[in-house]
């Protein structure tokens, strides 16, 4: 069916168990999570067990609530006026929706990269990387900032391209470089989990592949959740895949969740198969 390649050829992680290492990253357990925009319910009763040290892809047609769900994992959903969530999300066993949990502290432990690259326009590349440290942690000696900038930019596979223009504006970089700068900024504060909300949707194929390679390296240290509307990307880049779908009243549900290979090769649900084969969405 696929004119380029079939999913079987591009699935990169044949077996989940080979790549999963128990000490990498933190587990995220989502329990009966529902999300609302004012009166409208956008997500109903999501249960999802994100395994540590793996890349989990969330796929589904537009409007199925995948972005809403990922934003619930670091309590970014509630920054929208009128939006709130119920249920619980356990980060390493600790409920981030507990009454005494601070959303600000949660977000330091769970980094996020957005759909559109959003470096701070008035700041340099260098300042962008350490923005999280400067804004939210006690002042550090310059040598530590220097070290963090180099380490984060190397981790984001951007160091070689920008090492000579660290002090020019972050918005002067290309789109793909900006997105990797945003990843560097997110990992500079050393989070335990990295959330990426369609990080490649504004990028060309070359930049997309660079980001995917990067994620593959980063999963040794971080638990990664990747929202994507691109099924090839989910097949290429992820170990686990969750398929979501909205019902007639636009409420998003989790339809199926499992190792990427199984979801793509032997989906159990009819709607998953329809979506993956292009008959739906």
């Amino acid at each position, binding site marked *: 069916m696929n004119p380029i390649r079939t999913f079987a050829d591009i699935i990169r992680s044949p077996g989940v168990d080979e790549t999963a290492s128990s000490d990498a990253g933190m587990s995220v357990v989502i329990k009966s999570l529902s999300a609302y925009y004012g009166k409208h319910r956008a997500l109903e009763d999501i249960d999802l067990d994100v395994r540590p040290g793996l890349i989990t892809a969330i796929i589904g047609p537009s409007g199925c609530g995948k972005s809403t769900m990922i934003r619930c994992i*670091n309590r*970014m959903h509630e*920054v929208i*006026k009128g939006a709130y969530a119920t249920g619980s999300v356990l980060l390493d066993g600790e409920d981030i929706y507990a009454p005494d949990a601070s959303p*600000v*502290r*949660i*977000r*330091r*432990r769970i*980094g*996020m990269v*957005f759909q*559109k690259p*959003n*470096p*701070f*326009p*008035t700041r340099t590349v260098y300042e962008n990387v350490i*923005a*999280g440290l400067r*804004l*939210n942690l006690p002042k550090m000696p310059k040598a530590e900032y220097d070290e963090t900038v180099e380490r984060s930019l190397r981790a984001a596979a951007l160091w070689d391209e920008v090492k000579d223009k660290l002090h020019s*504006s972050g*918005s*002067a970089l290309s789109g793909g470089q900006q997105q990797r700068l*945003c990843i560097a*900024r*997110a990992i500079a*504060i050393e989070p335990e989990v990295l959330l990426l909300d369609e990080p490649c949707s504004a990028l060309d194929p070359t930049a997309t592949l660079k980001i995917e390679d990067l994620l593959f390296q980063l999963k040794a240290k971080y638990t990664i959740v990747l929202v994507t509307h691109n099924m090839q990307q989910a097949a290429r880049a992820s170990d686990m895949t969750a398929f979501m779908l909205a019902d007639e009243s636009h409420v998003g549900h989790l339809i199926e969740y499992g190792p990427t290979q199984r979801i793509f090769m032997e989906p159990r649900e009819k709607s998953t198969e329809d979506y993956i084969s292009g008959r739906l969405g």
Partner: protein
Amino acid sequence: MPKDGEERRFLGRRVRGTVNAALAVALTALSVAILFAIVGHIFVNGVGSLNADFFTKIPKPYGEVGGGIAQAIAGTIVMLLVAGLIAIPIGMGTAIYIIEFGRGRFAEVVRFAIELLAELPSIVVGVFIWALLVRNLTGYSGIAGACALAVIMIPIIARSVEEILKLVPDSLREAALALGTPRWKVVLYIVIPTVLPGILTGVMLSLARAAGETAPLLLTALGNTFFNLDLRRPMAAMPLQIFNYAVSPYDDWHRKAWASTLVLIAIVAILSGAVKFFTRRWKHESH
């Protein structure tokens, strides 16, 4: 024939287009011409009276020729500074509250109140400050005048800063929030620096407007023909001076009214020019 009809319609559209464009150009020319006529008239009538005395001396007694308006220039500058100190934090704070923190009905009420305040006739502001401060507390004084000007400036600053904050994309706020930044820090260190040139322009706008206000000062600062920088005593201001000179029976004072008007316009123009210059440089450096 259908072709003829089509050509006629085409011609009609062209004629209508030309007429509309000509009308737009003519009206634009008219408004620019009015501006130039005013400024030109003021310049021609005022420039002859400008000399060193005009800027350094205070007015001469009735009937005597000479002297200047130094006390009015100083009074206007002092009252604008004090009014700015009062109005900038309040106006900016209001706008920041409405856009960054306000949720639900209360923010709407605040926005509506600011709109009403902006539409208040300035003489009413003068009467209000007179009743509130002048009568009971301060008497006719520079500080009362500054308060009246601040009331004029607050809604202008609040509305312009509100519009500017709306231009900051939410993606920028989310970028900072997602790093675990508290909201107040997002506003202070990310949002405001991004739109600082726009905020300065809004503040300038309000200063320019306040610099020309006469009515609120009549009942508060009162005016003064002597040099006075004491905020507790009546203070001179350029618009008051212009008003007093213009309604006087002396030709010399009429000429001085024109000259004062010219200086007032020049001060406002220089201020806004300076802000434009510095914000452009600031923008340039950060990119």
